[in-house]
C-alpha cells in the first residue's frame, strides 16, 4: 500500500492600500476644504490646512491612505461635501 503524501501550502498577502485624493477646483473655498477635512477625518486644523494648501498649490493631495472599504467610504463622504475626489490603489 502506497503512502499518501499530503502537502498544504499557505500564503498571506497584504491588502493593497488605497489612496483618497482631493482635486483642486476654482469653486470650493479654501476654508471650506479645511473645514471638511477636519470634519470627516478628525484632522486638527494645522494638518487639514497643510493638505488643503497641497490641493490648492499642487492641484491635488492624497488626504488619506488605507484599506479599500474605508477609502470608498471617505471618498463618498467627500463627494457628498461636493469636493472633487477620487480613489486609487496606492503605488
Amino acid at each position: 500500500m502506497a503512502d499518501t503524501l499530503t502537502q498544504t501550502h499557505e500564503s498571506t498577502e497584504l491588502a493593497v492600500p488605497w489612496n483618497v485624493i482631493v482635486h483642486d477646483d476654482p469653486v470650493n473655498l479654501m476654508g471650506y476644504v479645511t473645514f471638511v477635512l477636519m470634519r470627516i477625518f478628525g484632522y486638527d486644523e494645522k494638518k487639514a490646512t497643510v493638505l488643503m494648501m497641497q490641493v490648492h498649490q499642487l492641484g491635488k493631495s492624497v488626504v488619506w491612505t488605507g484599506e479599500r472599504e474605508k477609502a470608498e467610504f471617505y471618498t463618498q463622504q467627500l463627494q457628498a461635501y461636493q469636493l472633487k475626489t477620487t480613489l486609487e490603489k496606492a503605488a
Partner: protein
Amino acid sequence: MKIMQTLEGGLRVDMEDGDDWKILLGILRDAASCDVKLADRLGNMVTAEEVAEDWKEFIIPDLDATFDADLAHVSNSISAARMESAGGPGPLWISKDDGFRWYSALNQARLAIEDKFHFGPSEEVDPAKLTTESSGAFLRSLIYTNLQSLLLDRVMR
C-alpha cells in the same frame, strides 16, 4: 439685501425689494443649469475598475438624492419667506441647523456656473471682457460666494 447673524447662530437675510428675492431664486435656477448633474460630474471621476460599477449603481444616485434634497429644502424656505412678505421687503431666516443645506445649494449653483462658463479663480476674471450673460453669471457667483463665506464663518463652524 442685508445679512445679520442671529443670537441662535443662524443668519437673518433682509430682502429690501423684489429684486433681492430674484437673487435668491437664482440659486435654484443656476444649480439646475448644468446639462450633467453634479452627482454624475463628481461620481464619474471614480474610474478605478474595482469600484466604478458600484459607484454608478449605488453612490451616484445617493449623492443625487442628497443634493436634490438640499435644493428642495432651500426652495421651500425661499418660497415660504417670500409668500410671508408678499414678494416685497421682508426677512428670510437661516437657522444654524440649515446652514449646510444652504451652503450646499449655493455651492451647487457656483459649480454649475463654473462648469458652464469656466471662469476659474475670480480674481483672474476681467469683467470688461465678459458678455452680458456671463457677466450676470459671474456677479451672481460672487454674491453666492459672499453668502457662503458668511455661512462658513458664522454658522457652520
